[in-house]
């Protein structure tokens, strides 16, 4: 009997190992032909292509890759081709950190970019900082991220304070709604920061937060919070939900099912197709403060939408596709201007010196000493299952 036990355990172990290795094998096959030639510049792309963040990061990576192909087709960086090295962060902080390490040590990336959530960007940024490799987050919006990580970290999008202020301004100035219910995901740095800045601005402008409630990411059941709200609405006219993509559709749907038809507003965490896929018609009357409207008639935006559609067979899923695209151009611009495009420190200085770089999601300028750009915020509204442009808010 003892023998059978040992045998079975061995088989189990073998199976688990086999799984671990199939994972590795996959990574390797993607990276074939990785031998760094002198005429290429390796750019690390670190995105959560699987897991809860994938609905933001996959479009973002698509945009990033497309921009690199465009730049290479136009002759590259002073004759050198950009080689995008991608590693999946799997929506897991430990995996993100080891992915960053892999990009630096194995793939010899001179700059690393990607990620749409602060928790993961902090993990990746730390690794890059300690290896003195510039890190640009394409979509994470924690305004204090560069301070926390160090002088090699940059934001490509606006900070949370900016998007939260814009949502507060829009609710009060445009929607004329001065009583707000606040629901916060307490498990994320991003959602806590966003809610904090929203509350600050909303109250400063004379609005009242009538009730604040909390939940944890991936709690599938919001009925306790919703019933608490229904029992004590306090005259709320609008709901601000500070959440991330995988909860967006679920929470909105449950509020609507319980008969709450009030407008809901949120930050770019709700800028995900999952919102409409999960909630269906219930997603109507949800406002989302985000990085761009893909309906914008600006020729640069329309060219991006048309190209993306041609390459991937469908329109960009959300503004994160555009952020990924802009981030690659931000890197390319820095590589062009750097005194030595193989020296990470020179690239960092070149990124920090970026001025008036126009992209799909607005214009990037890093003010003296700041590594967070000031950009406008777009307010979209879900109507008939689509994001419809409402207003561009400048602070």
């Amino acid at each position, binding site marked *: 009997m003892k023998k059978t*036990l040992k045998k*079975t355990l061995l088989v*189990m172990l073998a*199976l688990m190992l086999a799984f671990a290795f199939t994972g590795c094998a996959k990574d390797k096959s993607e990276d074939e032909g990785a031998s760094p030639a002198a005429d290429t510049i390796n750019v690390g792309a670190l995105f959560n292509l699987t897991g809860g963040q994938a609905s933001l990061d996959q479009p973002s990576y698509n945009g990033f890759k497309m921009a690199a192909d465009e730049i290479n087709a136009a002759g590259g960086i002073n004759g050198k081709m950009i080689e995008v090295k991608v590693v999946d962060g799997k929506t897991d902080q430990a995996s993100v950190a080891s992915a960053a390490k892999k990009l630096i040590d194995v793939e010899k990336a001179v700059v690393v970019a990607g990620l749409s959530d602060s928790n993961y960007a902090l993990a990746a940024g730390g690794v890059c900082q300690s290896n003195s490799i510039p890190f640009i987050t394409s979509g994470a919006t924690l305004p204090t991220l560069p301070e926390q990580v160090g002088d090699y970290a940059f934001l490509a999008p606006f900070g949370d304070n900016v998007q939260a202020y814009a949502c507060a301004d829009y609710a009060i100035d445009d929607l004329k709604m001065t009583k707000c219910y606040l629901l916060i995901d307490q498990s994320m740095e991003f959602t806590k920061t966003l809610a904090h800045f929203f509350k600050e601005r909303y109250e400063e402008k004379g609005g009242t937060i009538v009730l604040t409630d909390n*939940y944890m990411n*991936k709690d599938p*059941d919001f009925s306790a919070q919703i019933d608490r709200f229904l029992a004590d609405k306090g005259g709320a006219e609008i709901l601000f939900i500070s959440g991330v993509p995988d909860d967006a559709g*679920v929470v909105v749907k449950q509020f609507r099912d319980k*008969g709450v038809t009030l407008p809901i507003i949120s930050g770019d965490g709700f800028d995900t197709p999952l919102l409409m896929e999960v909630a269906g018609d219930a997603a109507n009357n949800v406002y989302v403060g985000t990085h761009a409207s893909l309906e914008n008639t600006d020729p640069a935006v329309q060219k991006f939408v048309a190209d993306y559609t041609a390459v991937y067979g469908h329109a960009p899923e959300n503004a994160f596709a555009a952020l990924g695209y802009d981030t690659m151009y931000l890197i390319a611009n820095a590589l062009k201007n750097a005194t030595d495009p193989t020296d990470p420190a020179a690239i960092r200085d070149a990124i920090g010196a970026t001025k008036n770089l126009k992209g799909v999601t607005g214009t990037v300028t890093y003010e003296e000493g700041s590594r967070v750009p000031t950009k406008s915020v777009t307010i979209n509204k879900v109507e008939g299952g689509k994001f419809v442009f409402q207003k561009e808010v400048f602070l």
Partner: protein
Amino acid sequence: MDTLYVLSQLVNGLKLGSVYAMVAIGYSIVYGILRLINFAHGDIMTVAVYTILSLVTIFGLPLWMSIGASVVMAVVVGLIAERTAYRPLRAAGEETTLVSSLAVSIFLQNLMMMIFSPQRKAFHLPENLTFLHNFNGIRLSTMNIITFIAVIVILVILTFVIKRTRVGMAMRACSDNMDASRLMGININHVVVIAFIIGSSLAALSGLMLAGEYKTIDPMMGFVPGLKAFCAAVLGGIGSLGGAVLGGFVLGVAEMLFAGLMPTEITPYRDAFVFVVLILVLMVRPNGILGSREGGRS
């Protein structure tokens, strides 16, 4: 704090509790016989839900047919796990099968990730099941009502089977003393297979209820509800079916009343509260609320 509000939170608790109860029955029926804490139970739930989703969306089968197929699928997976990972280790002791059930759980999660990708997917039931009935301001979907009734009906049927039929008698005998039962001429493997068939079909049904309620599915969705249902089963007295159902409802109601009545600063930590309750109950009643001293089937 008016009564309607407390009542509505109570109903939320019953709603959640009936899903826990459903999962807990499946846990309990296998545990009762094998003393095996089957961690893969929640993941069999996930397999069933993905079966429904693929049959409905890819092959366009009607829902009732897909549900039938998902039950069959869950049973097949459950039996394969029993045959390959549990039966060969049965003589080795409870700790060993516990570990191999964790391995099966991780295996199934990874398998689902490989086949369906780790992405969350939307899961929609037809309108007539999600239709909301309004009872004096408290809204319940048809599915909620079906779940609640199903839990009670299944409890009654299974209790009858265990107390009044030959198979049930064999199950109780195995639960009391497996070696003696074998000497009495009971085919142990036969009894275990039946327990796994019942347990896995219940997992399939509870998966449907869970996914239908929350409208999204992902490969990891079974694990936490599985864990909570296991706690429900322990709370109620593991091995006792009535205890599993009671434990499920107690856990669900405790969770919702905590989330609904406590200050909002601490409500996100409701899972921690639930487990504190579990510890407190077990300190007073180590065998659970309805558990007998020997921890056998009551």
